[in-house]
């Protein structure tokens, strides 16, 4: 039987690349999104051409009710839930001194609490199955810090700690939990940066190129595969050597 993966924020960017990469490896996919219905539908159709099944599901990962409904629908549709990719995330950059409380709260709510709520919701099913693989998308700035991103960095560092705790709590039930920490990846999120900022980033990357969503997708596919059966609680940095 095919495995089933729930990928949050799979309508665009890194989440979309992960969804397609898993689909290419025979995994049925739930494409979660917040507002981009048409984009999510296009991802579903692209996945279906790869010979696996897919559905889209609109849910705000920061809402426990939404997340519970999504997990329920996943199990109802596919009969199992084997893989969770906590990818959905937002940023509201601002200098610490200027950062509004709402900007801080929004980012923590979606990026950190959303990750927690999704892990909590899938655990029941994965414990029953005695099998589960979870990958959380953190960020290299969660390790190194980054000016202008106090909220985002706090959330991403939080995800790294959450990953370790979930890994320890759930290991006895054969649920592995790891994180990937992307560096500078070309997506809508980073398109917002100026050419000057991008050139500056490039200078700090030993492999001298920006990352692609596929770079993240391939490592993620490895972490959820049986090849990574002995890896849990880890954060793999995928940044072209930027932070060492």
């Amino acid at each position, binding site marked *: 039987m095919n495995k089933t993966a729930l990928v949050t924020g799979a309508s665009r960017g890194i989440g979309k690349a992960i969804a397609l990469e898993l689909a290419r490896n025979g995994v049925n996919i739930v494409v979660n999104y917040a507002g981009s219905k048409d984009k999510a539908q296009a991802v579903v159709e692209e996945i279906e051409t790869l010979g696996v099944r897919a559905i889209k599901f609109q849910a705000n990962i920061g809402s426990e009710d939404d997340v519970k409904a999504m997990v329920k629908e996943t199990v109802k549709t596919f009969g199992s839930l084997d893989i969770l990719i906590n990818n959905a995330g937002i940023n509201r950059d601002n200098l610490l001194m200027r950062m509004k409380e709402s900007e801080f709260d929004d980012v923590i709510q979606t990026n950190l609490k959303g990750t927690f709520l999704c892990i909590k919701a899938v655990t*029941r099913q994965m*414990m*029953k199955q005695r099998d589960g693989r979870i990958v959380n998308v953190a960020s290299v700035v969660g390790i190194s810090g980054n000016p202008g991103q106090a909220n985002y960095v706090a959330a991403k560092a939080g995800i790294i700690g959450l990953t370790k705790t979930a890994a320890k*709590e759930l290991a*006895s*039930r054969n649920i592995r939990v790891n994180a990937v920490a992307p560096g500078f990846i070309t997506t809508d999120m980073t398109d917002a940066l100026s050419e000057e900022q991008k050139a500056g980033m490039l200078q700090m990357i030993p492999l001298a190129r920006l990352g692609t969503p596929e770079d993240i997708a391939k490592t993620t596919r490895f972490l959820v595969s049986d090849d990574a059966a002995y890896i849990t609680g880890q954060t793999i940095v995928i940044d072209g050597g930027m932070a060492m």
Partner: protein
Amino acid sequence: MADVFDRVKDIIVDKLEVDESKVTMEASFKEDLEADSLDVVELVMELEDEFDMEIADEEAEKINTVGDAVNYINSQQ
């Protein structure tokens, strides 16, 4: 009453792999049945499925013995 107890007992024996004779109303999951915290959470999940009910986290936290579970289920039916 006996019915609920027997159904609960079956689940406990199956999940915790303990001898039937150890599963009494007074038995504490952690002290007498060698369950850890996660086992208890799992057990509560199984009971929810078996009895088709939702046990709120606040209620679940109060379930320490087999009797606690049986009495809670009876009180809801």
